[in-house]
């Protein structure tokens, strides 16, 4: 029998650690790509060793200038962005950004993309030998310039092809990030699972648009942009629920998470971990609060291991 102290200890320190494709996370909370820079930007506001992983801004083979401004527009309970994947390029990342991350005792997951199939492959290759990179996250929500701009992630065949190629070029844990702008996300999910993905993150932004009625111009220079923030959460929760039932690999839930309660919705419908995006802008300490809130919830509910929550939805 346990004595009081032991019981109290057990109650007060639930296990929060989870594994994603062999990456050990101290807790299931990490930033969403593109909302956390290269990690450094938030180091003064947040203990980078208090979150589960660090995910970088999406990298491409060459540095990329992105779109003209305005690149962001606030909408009701959301924001549109059309940054256009501006980034320093994979080589500059390794040279200038990685050294900072090397000193942080938290797994680094590198998000990347390509404009062509070949580019995806090449970036994967460059990352394959870098020991500080714990895993990669493949963003397939980009238009395939060779195929007339059709987005890789909206065509299950193209998605499968790009995942298979990247899989060949890298042996590190491979997470594939799905776009929600599809008729049936389980089709893409199964396609990337079959092509060798170790995990899925879901969702990227929903394509949206806003107009300034006085000037009659789009509020983004790019006309359309990606909608993120709490407005999209119900859609993200639904998709994570669907995907978690459709595949065997772990799912990372993303979309509109602002508080611990929101993160818990994703875990309950089947996510093994979550990513926090727009909330970082609103509160740079958001992830720390979410980790603390999940822990508190587990204690209140007598849950000794956060993994008990995963997929615990009662329907």
């Amino acid at each position: 029998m346990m004595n009081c102290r032991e019981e109290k200890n057990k109650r007060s320190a639930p296990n929060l650690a989870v594994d994603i494709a062999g990456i050990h996370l101290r807790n299931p909370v990490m930033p969403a790509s593109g909302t956390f820079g290269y990690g450094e930007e938030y180091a003064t506001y947040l203990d980078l060793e208090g979150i589960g992983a660090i995910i970088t801004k999406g990298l491409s083979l060459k540095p990329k200038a992105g779109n003209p401004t305005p690149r962001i527009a606030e909408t009701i309970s959301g924001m549109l962005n059309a940054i256009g994947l501006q980034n320093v390029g994979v080589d500059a990342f390794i040279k200038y950004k990685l050294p900072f991350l090397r000193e942080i005792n938290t797994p680094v997951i590198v998000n990347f993309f390509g404009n062509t199939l070949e580019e995806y492959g090449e970036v994967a290759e460059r990352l394959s030998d870098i020991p500080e990179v714990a895993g990669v996250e493949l963003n397939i929500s980009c238009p395939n310039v060779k195929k007339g701009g059709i987005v890789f992630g909206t065509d299950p065949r193209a998605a499968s092809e790009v995942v298979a190629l990247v899989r060949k070029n890298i042996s590190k844990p491979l997470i594939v990030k799905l776009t929600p702008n599809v008729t049936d996300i389980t089709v893409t999910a199964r396609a990337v699972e079959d092509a060798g993905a170790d995990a899925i993150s879901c969702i990227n932004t929903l394509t949206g648009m806003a107009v300034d009625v006085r000037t009659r111009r789009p509020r983004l220079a790019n006309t359309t942009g990606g909608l993120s923030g709490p407005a999209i959460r119900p859609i993200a929760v639904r998709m994570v629920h669907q995907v978690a039932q459709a595949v065997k690999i772990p799912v990372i839930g993303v979309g509109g998470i602002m508080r611990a309660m929101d993160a818990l919705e994703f875990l309950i419908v089947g996510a093994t971990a979550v990513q926090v995006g727009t909330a970082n802008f609103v509160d740079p300490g958001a992830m720390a609060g979410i980790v603390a809130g999940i822990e508190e919830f587990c204690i209140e509910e007598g849950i000794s291991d956060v993994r008990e929550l995963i997929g615990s939805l009662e329907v």
Partner: protein
Amino acid sequence: MKNYKTMVLSNQEISPGYHRMRILAPGFDEISRPGQFVMFRVQMSLPPLLRRPFGIFRTGFLPPDCDGLPPKEYLELLYKVVGRGTGIMSDLHEGDRVEVLGPLGKGFDTGNPGEEKILVGGGIGLVPLFSLALELTKTSKVRLLMGGRTRDDILAVTEFERLGVETYVSTDDGSLGEEGMVTQVLQRKLDKYPHAAVYACGPLPMLRAVHDICAPRGTSLQVSLEALMACGVGACLGCVVKGRGHSEENPQLLCTCKEGPVFRAEQLDWSNLEKEPDYCEGCAS
């Protein structure tokens, strides 16, 4: 740099549509420099979703209460109500809980002591110039050229004068000071003080006009820019401006939040500074 979860000490309208807010911010003065800014939000409030950027007008201390506690250090903002976020701000009262993230960005380079300094402010652009003037007047002769649409847009002039700043006011409609553009005054002053360093903050067309005056003369110019911002810390890349060397291959994009908001004029690609479209009131919701 810190996220202050704090509260409003006072908030009042100082001219039609312009407000001044004091926020409790212990230790803020020590870490902030003229020209830096903060990202503001009302605690627990959605909407608006995102924080709003504001320059630092000044920091100061409230006289100690009769309760004998130490004086309260405050951060003072001066803002113009233009949309939803600033509308909500204008309704705040003493004790309301707010958050300020800051100080953020790079401030002004205060240059050489003794050097003549000319500040050029357009409308609400005077904000960072005031904290700059507080610093510059310690060692230099400072002149302020202040422009606005009407007399209501000319703020805090007496406060500048109290620092010993020589102030020249111009308004588009002549309702206060000289009628016309602040740049006319700048031409004259630079003729008289050709070695002065210029610091400017205001709408982009004004900054461009100031640049066009300073560049051929080789006058040192620092400008403080505005941009739509989501994060304020260099993470979202929403606020970029094109740097001087800008080209397709070498984009040279600078974050207004992190590498700015103050730039030396020669850092920027003036022919390619995009103007943020003028959104109508309330559309940003």
